């Protein structure tokens, strides 16, 4: 178990930078998720941490010791691959024990370690089988067993759940989280799925085009995104972004003929007439009822209702703007209805319209 620091890591192929001055540091036992759209450099960064790829500049330290230039086996890490990368000609037992065999551990001790891990992952009955005879979920477990058996300082996961079906993915997600809590291991996990990132991480690093957009706890990332990209990438349905102009102490929503007060979270002074984007998560809207204390609200037309079970997603219209709201099931709304919706401005975020940076 160990801490990990990524200091000013840059990777470029000629003039093309795939990673640009990445700085991330996590403590012992943390679960770091690298998340971003495909091609953002998250997998490359993981490969660099593993020692499978080399970075152009910067340094990586594990437990304070620089590991730059070391082979993967010298870094005391273990990795779970997206395709599981099981050795097809070996049994499950040999697959899990292969790294120990390569480090010349005596056979008796090796088998003991393998059986302990198999027990933990409930795959003891599969030990004699070949990977070709296993289902996707079982292969996934074997791949995790191969990492666990080494008892490394850091576990690296490269989109390990992306080949599983939806139900199994949710199960394995919980299982990985349980393992993390039980072993207290330091984990770096790559995914493009923002729900995986939110549910599993203790720290999230959101990346785009080789640049670290924001690094923080899931709450930070969700409630206080630093820019429009992070705001819209994390959360589903995505955050609503309403173009507005600053008029005195209020925001005049463009194309909607409505005025709202400036959110309390804004600390930067706003000049008159500044173009901004008002960021509202769908759950920050609710149906204004007669009894509730009066706050800022907007009259909106309900266009489409999408029940999901626990929630109802409602596509609302204000002039030219469409706004998504997440309402509790049972909220009395119907398509075509006009209603007044309360807006929780204590959470709302204001972004600069040109740069996309939060104000």
């Amino acid at each position, binding site marked *: 178990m160990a801490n990990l620091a990524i200091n000013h890591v840059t990777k470029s192929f000629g003039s093309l930078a795939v990673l640009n001055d990445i700085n991330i540091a996590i403590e012992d036992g943390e679960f770091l998720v690298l998340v971003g759209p495909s091609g953002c450099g998250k997998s490359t960064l993981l*490969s660099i941490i*593993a020692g*499978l790829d080399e970075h152009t500049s910067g340094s990586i330290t594990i437990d304070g010791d620089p590991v730059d230039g070391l*082979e*993967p*086996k010298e870094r005391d*890490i*273990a*990795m779970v*691959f*997206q*395709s599981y*990368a*099981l*050795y*097809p*000609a*070996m049994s499950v037992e040999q697959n899990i024990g*292969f*790294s120990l065999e*390569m*480090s010349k551990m005596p056979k008796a001790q090796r088998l003991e370690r393998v059986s302990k891990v198999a027990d933990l992952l409930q795959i003891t009955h599969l030990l004699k089988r*070949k990977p*070709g*005879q296993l289902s996707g979920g079982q292969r996934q477990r074997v791949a995790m067993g*191969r990492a666990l058996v080494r008892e490394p300082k850091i576990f690296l996961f490269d989109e390990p759940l992306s080949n599983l079906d939806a139900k199994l993915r949710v199960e394995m997600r919980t299982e990985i989280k349980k393992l993390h809590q039980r072993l207290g291991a330091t984990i770096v996990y790559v995914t493009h799925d923002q729900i995986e990132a939110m549910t599993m991480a203790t720290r999230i690093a959101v990346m785009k085009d080789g640049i670290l957009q924001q690094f923080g706890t899931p709450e930070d990332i969700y409630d206080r995104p630093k820019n429009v990209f992070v705001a819209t990438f994390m959360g589903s349905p995505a955050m609503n972004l309403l173009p507005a102009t600053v008029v005195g102490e209020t925001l005049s929503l463009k194309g909607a003929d409505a005025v709202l007060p400036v959110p309390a979270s804004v600390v930067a002074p706003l000049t008159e007439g500044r173009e901004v984007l008002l960021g509202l998560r769908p759950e920050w809207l609710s149906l204004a009822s007669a009894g509730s204390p009066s706050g800022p609200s907007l009259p909106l037309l309900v266009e489409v209702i999408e029940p999901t079970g626990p929630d109802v997603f409602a596509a609302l219209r204000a002039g030219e703007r469409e706004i998504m709201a997440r309402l509790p099931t049972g909220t009395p709304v119907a398509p075509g209805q006009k209603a007044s919706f309360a807006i929780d401005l204590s959470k709302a975020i204001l972004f600069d319209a040109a740069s996309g940076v939060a104000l």
Partner: protein
Amino acid sequence: MPAIVLSPSLAAVTVCVYGFIAYTAILSFTGSKMFARFDFVGWRQYERLFENPRWITAIENMAIFGGLYIIGATCLGLFIAILIDQKIRLEGVFRAVFLYPMALSFVVTGVIWQWLLNPGLGLEHMMRSLGWESFTFQWLIEPERAIYTIVIAGVWQVTGFVMALFLAGLRGIDTEILRAARVDGAPIHKVYTRIIIPALRPAFLTVFVIEAHLAIKSYDLVVALTKGGPGVSTELPSTFMYSMTFTRNELGVGAASATVMLVSLASIIIPYLYSELRNDRHA
């Protein structure tokens, strides 16, 4: 509709392949000499076959040639495939160079190697004219060694094709597996012996089946390279079968030798195919 499309070729295969196999098997139990006759003589032709020292030589040569040809071409082909798989430059050029011998017929291969190995024309002559007067390489005309010249020519011709098959197999291996092996700390020779080569099992099956049938039916190579000689020292079952059937008027013995070849080939390949295909279904 599929039945209509397939039926002409099915009929052709049934008559021309299986029909004539059956006809040959029947002939081997008759006393046929120059022409087919249907006077059944039981196992007599098989007894005569195995009493014939030329047939025994042919079988011994088959074992030497077949064994060395299969082992040699497989090992060499795999080795070249592994070298080419190292992300080298000009890969396409190398692949083509190694594959070209496959484009030549066995007869051409035989003639080329006959020239190369001929003491008065080829390698020996060249070394001597370069000044190495004592250089001697006369395998082609030594009865004990001549069979190995056929192995050399055969391996030379088929290695490129074997390489292409293995290369396809190597390219089919998930690169993440190689990365996983690196993380697991496996040295490069272990990666090959423990992971990559075992993963090439299907390619080994294909290679073995192709080499085995090429070895057993090889006829033109021998004819072009040594004509079965010196003497009968490079006689193979196929050349024996041909000369018995068509030049020595022993149709019955020829048919018997052909049947023995078929049965021995089948007894090697059928169990192998059976076990491999059954494993595949389980996997």
